[in-house]
């Protein structure tokens, strides 16, 4: 049961080592990296490769740690009480299972993805420590203890916005997805567009990496933008020479909307084009 990447996902050697070690020791794997470098998709692919169900917990700025365990909907119970609903006598009707509970109870070993943990409150990871360590927790309302049959495989992603607490980090394996170099990128493109024209990819990548190098960009285009852009280029049947004869006065790549998502960045490119025209 080793993860070696999949038909649709390119895993570098270091990533494979981290995933496999984390899965074997059943310790959470924390994955960081620029937006769009395949952090979320990784969990899906690991689940697919191991034939495990994927349970996804998307973290938002308002997410609280206890919501991963369960929520007790006292308000609904009050309402039902008011209406004389029979359900009100059983508190279990108002306990809503969280993703951790779901993962602990899963009949087959699942992959639990905790996506974008950095979005939550700074205390969030600490609040989960005990449950992740013990792989069990108490439901006070029903005096139950929920224990994992088997420790799930946990993948946690972070966009790097926030420092995570030490105590939490010590328990994890860590992998930083380095922005793909050309070879890796080529391989990623190949899995998404099998049989795509090599020359087109070469040119598109030239432009892509050049765009990424332009100083002052607010949002550098990432793997996902490159893939979107290629899809557009293919859909529009962009003649190769439009990419190839790079006219310096046209600093803006064709269909740039897919690459540059930020208005200021588009303006930056227009300015570069303007300067190039003046010099030329």
């Amino acid at each position, binding site marked *: 049961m080793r993860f070696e990447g999949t038909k649709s996902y390119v895993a570098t*050697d*270091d990533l494979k*080592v*981290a995933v*496999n*070690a*984390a899965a*074997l*020791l059943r*310790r959470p*794997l*924390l994955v*960081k990296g620029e937006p769009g470098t395949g952090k979320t998709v990784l969990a899906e692919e690991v689940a697919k490769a191991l034939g495990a169900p994927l349970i996804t917990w998307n973290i938002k*700025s*308002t997410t609280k740690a206890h919501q991963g365990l369960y929520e007790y909907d006292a*308000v609904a119970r*009050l*309402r039902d*009480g*008011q209406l004389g609903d029979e359900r009100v006598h059983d508190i279990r009707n108002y306990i809503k299972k969280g993703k951790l509970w779901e993962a602990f109870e899963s009949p087959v070993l699942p992959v639990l993805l905790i996506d974008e943990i950095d*979005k939550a*409150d*700074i205390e969030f990871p600490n609040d989960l420590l005990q449950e992740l360590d013990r792989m069990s927790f108490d439901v006070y309302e029903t005096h139950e203890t929920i224990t994992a049959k088997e420790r799930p495989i946990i993948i946690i992603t972070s966009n*790097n*916005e*926030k*420092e*995570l607490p*030490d105590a939490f*980090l*010590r*328990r*994890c*394996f*860590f*992998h*930083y997805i*380095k*922005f793909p*170099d*050309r*070879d890796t990128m*080529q391989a990623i493109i190949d899995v998404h567009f099998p049989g795509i024209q*090599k*020359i087109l990819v*070469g040119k598109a*990548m*030239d432009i892509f*990496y*050049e765009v*990424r*190098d332009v100083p*002052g960009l607010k949002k550098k285009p990432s793997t996902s933008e490159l893939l979107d852009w290629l899809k557009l280029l293919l859909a529009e049947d962009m003649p190769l020479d439009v990419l190839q004869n790079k006219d310096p006065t046209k600093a803006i790549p064709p269909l740039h909307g897919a690459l540059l998502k930020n208005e*200021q960045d588009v*303006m930056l490119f227009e*300015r570069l084009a303007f300067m190039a025209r003046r010099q030329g």
Partner: protein
Amino acid sequence: MFFNFLDELRAAGINASLKEHLILLEALDKDAIERTPEQFYYLSRSVFVKDEGMLDRFDQVFNKVFKGLLTEYGTNPQEIPADWLRAVAEKFLTPEEMAKIESLGSWDEIMETLKKRLEEQQERHEGGNKWIGTGGTSPFGHSGYNPEGVRIGGESKHKRALKVWEKREFQNLDNTRELGTRNIKIALRRLRKFAREGAAEELDIKATIDGTARQGWLDIHMRPERRNAIKVLLFLDVGGSMDPFVKLVEELFSAATAEFKNLEFFYFHNCLYEGVWKDNKRRFSERTPTWEVLHKFPHDYKIVFVGDAAMSPYEITHPGGSVEHFNEEAGAVWMHRVTNTYPATVWLNPTPEAHWGYSQSTKVIKDLMNDRMFPLTLDGLEDAMRELTRKH
């Protein structure tokens, strides 16, 4: 040897403990990896390093600790084997071109050139930019290289004996975070705390009590949790000495953007006048009239100025005092307009507080701010945020 590793990591400032060490041993014990130096490097890296800013240091420590052990690997890391070069050349060049090149000189010379070119390209490649043959300056002419479909890096990975950790691929990550990372993080925490204030309860107790009293039965009222209630307008002094600080503050706030309902920023130079701008390269062509800003953003915005307030006092007190343009109205007038429009306004000053007394203009600005000037330190930031969230 392993303990030495741990000590060296800690000496390099990597926060590794016995806990990680035990995890590493457990992983080895359970055969998590194939026993190759490379896999061991990857494994220990993912166990010990939890911050990408430390990856480069880890590489250096690893190199130091395991150097003796792995000498058979990569004895001459930069050397590119000649037969591989030849293979690449054949892929790169058409037979005609090869012939043409060969007519230029001996095969060795050509190989020398090609090797140099590849090394340059490799360097550039690792810097993440251009590919071979993008310019027309090659002695082989415009069409000298045809890189399409050739994966130089991929092949070189096996041929070049450079070890992964010797490549120091994460070097720039460390540099960029040098700027008092820890302080920034703590400051960010303060900012988040600031942003969180004003988040509402989920159960609207008052409405529930009112409703229940009126209706005679339990009448629950819920209120959406109003997160990120705080709206911030930043004014950043740019130009010269202020720039590193501005960058810092910009990064700080933008790292916290998820927390703010709205966060807007504008630039100014030295003192606020009738125009501000959003893009420094277009500061003269694309200005936003300050009036427009004052009208557009409601009074409940919190205003944060960031500047050293060091200038000639005339720049604040006199029309035409600006060093860059002719201002019809004095900067002080504009400062008044802002403080009158927005009750919650502070000025953050990166200059040490002890020096403020020596600068006439700093005193003037501080007065204009009704004393709400704070040093750009953790405590200063804390005080400033407290001031901003005070009931106005």
